[in-house]
């Protein structure tokens, strides 16, 4: 697991990188080498060309076009045309006043916060458990990532099946052990609907948290653990004072990426509740889809998209900062 090491080593090897800069062939000078250097520049750009073209086409263009759309007044009649009449700030005014949009934004915050807390606690607990030595840990460790491999839409379908009102497995368990007297209407009640998509999302996100935190734990030097034991620290103290501070960088990255994934969630909700009942489980993503592709008001949808984009990009500076060493490592060999 080469990459596993790297997870903990965010920023560890900047010094080596700098050293290697000097060894990098491109950094050398000399008459004969100058032409070679230029040739290498050209080759480098050629190697990059497909990626640059792709980024412009699949990211820059859609984002720019989305901004343009958000200032247009679109309707079913303008779907087929590339542009529509200018709308000024009307679409943003809609975002600020429409009650369903407001509740979708609030639900997104609740959903994201709930998911991160649930995924982190369960993922971390599992990571600690599997760091201990016991029979079957290797196979168990690899089975835990199963939920992550299931397509998101399929996860939604599976949970819809499990949380059915009648004949659903969850209700059957609750009835069997006497926790409920009547089947619970998970998917038919606004608050429970939100809870159900939260549970499904925690299920599918735990493997990611587990794997990252687990690999972080593996990178704690044994000497550190032993020293803590010798100092007579109890398990809780060891966790709080030794383990957490050491893997803090990993925790930061994991939570950050978890946030980015969760804010984007779409497939799961579409399959599980489709934003229902009565739009009570719409998130920004699903409601934006509804505005654009079901009501065909692309302008309003695009405006909401921009809200989502800003929300997601809030973490960009943090992300870049956490990856700063990797960024600086512009040439030369790393590890």
């Amino acid at each position, binding site marked *: 697991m080469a*990459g596993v090491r*790297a997870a903990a080593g965010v920023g560890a090897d900047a010094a080596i990188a700098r050293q290697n800069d000097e060894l990098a062939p491109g950094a050398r000078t000399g008459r004969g080498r100058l032409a070679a250097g230029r040739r290498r520049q050209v080759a480098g750009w050629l190697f990059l060309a497909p990626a640059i073209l792709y980024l412009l086409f699949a990211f820059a263009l859609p984002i720019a076009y989305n901004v343009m759309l958000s200032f247009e007044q679109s309707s079913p009649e303008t779907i087929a045309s590339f542009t529509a009449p200018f709308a000024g700030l009307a679409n943003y005014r809609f975002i600020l006043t429409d009650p369903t949009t407001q509740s979708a934004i609030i639900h997104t915050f609740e959903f994201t916060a709930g998911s991160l807390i649930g995924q982190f606690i369960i993922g971390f607990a599992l990571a600690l458990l599997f760091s201990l030595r016991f029979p079957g840990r290797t196979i168990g460790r690899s089975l835990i990532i199963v939920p992550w*491999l299931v397509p998101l839409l399929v996860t939604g379908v599976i949970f819809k099946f499990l949380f059915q009102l009648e004949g659903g497995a969850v209700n059957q368990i609750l009835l069997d052990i006497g926790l409920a007297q009547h089947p619970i209407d998970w998917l038919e009640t606004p608050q429970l609907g939100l809870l159900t998509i939260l549970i499904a999302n925690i299920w599918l996100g735990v493997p990611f948290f587990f794997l990252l935190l687990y690999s972080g734990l593996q990178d704690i030097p044994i000497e550190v653990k032993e020293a803590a034991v010798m100092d007579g620290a109890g398990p809780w103290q060891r966790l709080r004072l030794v383990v957490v501070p050491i893997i803090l960088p990993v925790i930061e990255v994991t939570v950050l990426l978890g946030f980015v994934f969760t804010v984007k969630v779409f497939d799961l909700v579409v*399959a599980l509740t489709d934003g229902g009942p009565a739009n009570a489980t719409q998130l920004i993503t699903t409601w934006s889809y509804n505005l654009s*592709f079901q009501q065909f008001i692309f302008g309003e949808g695009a405006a909401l998209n921009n809200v989502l984009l800003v929300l997601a990009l809030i973490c960009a500076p943090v992300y870049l900062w956490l990856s700063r060493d990797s960024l600086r490592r512009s040439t030369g060999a790393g590890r």
Partner: protein
Amino acid sequence: MTHLQRSRALRLLCTLGAVASLVVVLFPVYAVVVASFETTLTLLGNTYYFVPHGATLANYQVVLQAQAGHLLTSLIVGVGTAVLALVVAVPAGYALAKYPLRATVVLVSALLVAQIVPSIVIATSLFKVFHWIHLLNSYPGLILADGTYAIPFAILVLRAFFFSLPNEVMQAARVDGATEWQTFSRIVVPLGRSAVITVMVFAFLNGWGDFIFALTVLNGTTVEPITLAIYTYLGNFSQDWGAVMASVVFAIVPAAVMLVVAQRYIASGLTAGSVVG
């Protein structure tokens, strides 16, 4: 209790804890498999059976007839996404790792940010753009869109890997008179095999599991991958859980295969995602 007994008891406790958590984690998948063998009548009933109750293969017959074409479509999309990701990302990852270009910092930052962009934002615009350039309802259109999941990640993972190649390898090739392209294709790519496989596995799973682009840039008549087909089928026959669950079994087969065949690439890819670079 002796020290030995205590540690043995502790280990047993850990195993029990691990088994309990695995039961919760894996139950949904188990339930799918059981349901795929149940009759519609059983599934429509008010009772949920934890073990198969009157097993039948009827669901699989229905699904093989109705969904075989969609599975093939998903296979094409998955392979297409993997190929696109390789063509774009391998050279780019190499260039960003080994060539002293001024734009590197800007590009790597752009790639990091690109991973954050929500797909719905891209999908809304791409629908209109594709409409304009006639790429709606086509394999190339869908694969180009699915590349947005895979490509930034792939470039960053490959870049991180290529850092670890010693520069001497490439220098030796150049001294032997190899061109830049020859160095790349004959020396660098073969050496980067394991990273390339990680990237391929991820890109394939991205293309296979995609739903949002299938929903937006396809209209489900010409090209319809399995995710979209399951969604449509559920809309059409929401009482026919048996057939839906049999489709779901097929939809998670590639994931299961990958888990067995390519587990280490998946694990390393998952964690590499957090450093990306």
